[in-house]
Structures are given as C-alpha cells and as structure tokens.
C-alpha cells in the first residue's frame, strides 16, 4: 500500500485567458501516504497544480488520475480530497463546531457521529473547548487549526495545503510545521503541501518537488535536494550556496577559481564546463598560507549560531559560515574537501546566480518574495 500511486498528473497543460501556459505537459505522481511539498517561487505553477487536483481548475489538456480513476472533469464536491486554503476560508456565519461539522452535514451523517468526529478533530488540532466560539474571534493560528480540523473531519484520502502557514508569524509557523507533520504521521493521509519557503519544505517533507516556470527542476528527499542539487536554480533556491563556473578536467577532478580540486563527481565529458556548488557551511577557514584558495574578508555578520563571512577570492565573493570570528580586511585561506564540492551540469540557469557581492539586494528580494504571497493565489 505504501508505494501505491494515489494521484498522477499526465501531460497536464493549464493556461489562463489564452496566455502562455502556466503548466505545459506536466507530469507528476504522488504516492499514497507521502508528505510531498511543491516548492518554488511565486508564479511557478505550484498553486495551479494544487487547484487542478482540488477540481477548481480544469486543465486545457492532459488528465488527472486519483486512485487510478480519471477525475479530470469531476467537480470539486465529488473529489475525495480536501483543501486547506491560504486564508483558511472558514465560514464566518458558523461557529467552530459547525465549521468542522460542515462536510459531514452535507453528507447527512448522524448527529451522534458528527458530534463524536468534531470533538475528536478539535482534540487532534488542540482546540478542545473552542467548539462554541465564533471563528472571527480566533487568532490566525487557531483559525488555521479549525481549517485543518474541518478538512480532516471529511476523512479525505489526500489533503491539499496551499501555503497554509504563510500568514502566521515565525514562532507560530514553526509550531504548526511540526504539528502538521505530526498530524500527517498519525492520520497517514497523503499531504500535498505548497510553499515558497525552502526551510519549511526541507523540514516537513518526505519528498520535495522543486519547480520553476511550470517545470519540475528536481524531485527528491530533502537531503538529496540540499546536498545534490541538479542545477544552479535548485542550488540557489534551497539554502545558501556559492555557485562558480568550473571545468571538469576528468572524473573526480574539477578546476575552478583558478585552482584544481579533487571531488566525488564523475560521468562528465573531459573538459566539460560545469557549475560548481559549495555550501557556505562546508567551507573551512585556515591561515592564508595554508589555504587552497586565498581571499580577503570583506564583511562579517553575526547570525547567532555562526558568523556569515563574505570573502573576496580573486573578485568572486564567497559566503562562508563559520563559528570563528574573522577580522574584516584580513587575508584568510580556504580549504575544501572532496565531499564539500558538488558538480552540476550547465543549465539554462547557469550564470544567473552570481556571487555574494550583491548580497544585500538578494536579501531584499527574499523579503519581497515573502510579502508578495498574496499574488500567489491568482497564479
């Protein structure tokens, strides 16, 4: 049962108002019981996928299968999936109890069964004693929990979550992340989770699907995605990374930044141009004389757990995370072990993500991305 495909999208194409398709010949299979996250920037088509499965969008072409049955043209109310909407979409005219009971009342369940299920669900989401409250008076986190209870009360095979945590503050978000994960594990329901927050995706998912421009860039476990990004887009989108132009001299030998390194990658052509990814936390700092590369510290930022050090190596600004303090202006050495280096094939994204000389700009972009969440709904 564990590995059965629950939902599959086959050659799905979706466009709005005759514009360029948001999704084009899109294929994806989701296994039963999995926690799958669709991760990507605004407008990458992730919400469109979710809404197609929920039944709110009918694809222009292609088909969607649920448990082996074609559901492409089935209206939302006939699908055995439930959605957690970005803004919760609770019924403002009903109290917590009636919100959770809504789906069961539609199905004409007995009052006794409704009562039992509602209380069970409210207990599951830690809202015991809130049954008689009006939903308007609840906090964002509590509304979110009601939305989850309301969806789960229908005993769905699959739960679709559309950036459900984006409206919550940092602390609450972390709590809800672990809570959602716990609920997923206890209920065994398949979760399809949409987010643009890479940290959220990595910490919760069994499988992460990284998307951009309607195309899957990489599918894998969070560890795979982080350690073995397939291209510069994935490397840049997930975590911090130094992405350099390199040349694969032969198997296990790569040259970049004017030096030659041993690495663990093979299978490239001789002298093939490649992208090299080095995560900031993998870089070891040493005395200038002992380093494989040398550079000058241009800035230092205390982050709590570590310092973020920007080092200028022959004009390329590296980001290094180190627990040791380094003085700005000092020349330091860098050591890279073979397993610190990850080599990727060149892609359309090569060269799009520069070094950290424009670091502050990038931070701003991140903030913009986070605040433009609202736009995602119209995606």
């Amino acid at each position: 049962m564990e590995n059965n495909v629950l939902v599959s999208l086959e050659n799905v194409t979706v466009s709005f108002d005759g514009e360029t398709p948001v999704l084009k010949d899109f294929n994806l299979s989701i296994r039963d019981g999995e926690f799958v996250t669709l991760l990507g920037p605004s407008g990458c088509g992730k919400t469109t996928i979710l809404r197609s499965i929920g039944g709110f969008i009918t694809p222009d072409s292609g088909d969607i299968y649920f448990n082996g049955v074609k559901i492409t043209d089935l209206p939302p109310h006939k699908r055995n999936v439930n959605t957690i909407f970005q803004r919760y979409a609770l019924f403002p005219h009903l109290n917590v109890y009636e919100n959770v009971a809504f789906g069961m009342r539609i199905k004409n369940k007995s009052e006794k069964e409704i009562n039992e299920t509602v209380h069970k669900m409210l207990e599951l989401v830690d809202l015991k004693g809130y049954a008689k409250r009006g939903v308007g008076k609840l906090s964002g986190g509590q509304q979110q929990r009601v939305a989850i209870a309301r969806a789960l009360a229908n005993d769905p095979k699959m739960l679709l979550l559309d950036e459900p945590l984006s409206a919550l503050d940092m602390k609450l978000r972390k709590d809800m992340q672990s809570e959602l994960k716990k609920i997923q594990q206890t209920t065994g329901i398949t979760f399809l989770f949409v987010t643009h927050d890479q940290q959220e995706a990595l910490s919760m998912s069994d499988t992460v699907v990284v998307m951009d421009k309607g195309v899957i860039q990489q599918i894998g476990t969070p560890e795979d995605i982080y350690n073995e990004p397939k291209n510069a887009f994935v490397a840049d989108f997930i975590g911090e990374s130094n992405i350099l132009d390199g040349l694969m001299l032969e198997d296990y030998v790569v040259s970049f930044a004017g030096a030659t390194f041993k690495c663990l990658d093979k299978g490239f052509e001789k002298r093939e141009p490649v992208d090299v990814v080095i995560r900031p936390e993998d870089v070891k700092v040493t005395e200038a004389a002992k380093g494989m590369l040398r550079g000058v510290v241009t800035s230092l930022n205390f982050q709590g757990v570590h310092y973020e050090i920007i080092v200028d190596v022959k004009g390329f600004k590296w980001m290094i995370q180190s627990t040791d303090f380094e003085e700005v202006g000092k020349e330091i050495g860098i050591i890279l072990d073979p397993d610190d280096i990850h080599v990727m094939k060149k892609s359309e994204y090569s060269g799009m993500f520069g070094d950290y000389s424009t670091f502050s700009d990038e931070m701003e972009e991140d903030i913009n991305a986070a605040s433009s969440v609202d736009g995602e709904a119209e995606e």
Partner: protein
Amino acid sequence: MKAKGWATPYIIWMAIFIVVPLFLVVYFAFTGENGFTFANISKIGQYSNVFLRSIWMGAIATVISLLLGYPMAYMIARIPAKRQSVMIMLIMLPMWMNFLLRTYAWMSLLEDTGLINRLLQAVGLPQVHLINTSGAVILGMVYNYIPYMILPLYSILTKIDGSVIEAAQDLGANGRKVFLRVIFPLSMPGVISGITMVFVPAVSTFIISKMLGGGGNLLIGDLIDMQFLGSAYNPNLGSAISLVLMVMILICMGIMNQFDDGETMEGGMMI
C-alpha cells in the same frame, strides 16, 4: 475636540429638520381643539382595514421584490466586473427619471384603453381590467422599489469571499447546498436591508395607490394625504396616523434586525 466642532452644524441641522418636526408630529397627534387628548389615536381604530391593507400589500411587494431581485443581484455579482457596472447602471437608470412620470407611464400602459389592452385586442384576446386593482398597485411598488432591493443584495454578494465558496465545494457541497448553506446565510444582512428599504416606502406610499389603485385601494399614505391636503382636513388625525405608522415601521425594523443579529452572531443551523 476638532471633530466635535465639525459636527456642530450637522447637529443643528438635524435638530431643526428632524427632531423638531418629530416633536411637532407627536404634539399634533395628542392635541385637539381642547388641548391634550387621546381622541386622535383612538380614532385610528376605524381605519384598521387601511393599515392592514397597507401592510399586506407592502409585504407582498417586498416578497416579490426579493424573489425577483435576489436572482438578479446574484447574477450581476457573478458576471465580469466591467459588465457588472453596466448592469448596475441599467438598474439605477429608471431611478433618475421622475417618480411621478414613471408611475404615469404605467397608468397609460395598464389603462382599459392602454397599450397592453390594445395589444391584446389586436391579437384577438379579450380585454383585461388592470388599472385600479390592487395588483396594479403592487406592480407599481415592485417596479419603483426593486432597485433598493437589488443594490444592497448586489453589494453584499460581491463581498462574499470566493474562497469560502470554494471551501464549501471542497467539503462536498453541490451548487444548491453551497447556496443554501453558505451564500444565502452570508447574504442575510443584504436581505434584511433590502427588505427594509422596500417595505418602508411601500407601506407609506400614496402616489402609487392614488394613480394605479383608483379609489378602492386606499393606503395609509393616502389617508395621511387626505388629512393634510385633501377633503378630510384634520392635521391632528394625520399626525396621529403618521405616528402610529412610524411606530409600526420601527417595530418591523427592530424585528428584522433582531433576526439579522441572531444569524451572524450565533451562526448555527439555518436549514
């Protein structure tokens, strides 16, 4: 302090044109030739049939307006925004025409020798007596006041969050159940204000009944009209009738608002 200063002219305005006239109505209602008296109020009893007829016809006109206006408002709220404003324009357009003119137009349509009857004759059907019936009065009420039903309904229906409707569909509700369990309950404030805005002027109208109802459909408005401008000149009785009408409308609105509050605050099971 500043806000208080700004409010002063309005307070004076309201005092002169609302509070003082109200007191005058009350004063006249309880006075006669020999000073204070209940005679005017007690005389109203003999007009109870007029009161009942007014309320009855106002209520029918309101119900018809709601039944016709709700689907209309619902339809407008769902079409693309650009066409919405055109539709709303079309609904408001008749309101820019003079009220009397509009009612006169209906007169010439409904007359025994009017357009409708001539058309019926032309196709060989028997004449129908339309003018000077209670049906004509109700038609006039619906025609004149239905925009006041559609507009509040439209404005509340456009405000309903689309994701709430999607959530209902997501939870298994088909089109009918989405409407009955989500859209209609959420539009209750609009229903209430639409009902109020049609019922109140319909109950107190006098032009419509005078022009379309003939002599047999006397309404409260006509009664009051007669006491001030007509043959039965008696401002004291007119004031008393006005006062009773006002109290009745207040009670009706109070009942409606009670219903509205109960609906939005407690939620619960409507159907």
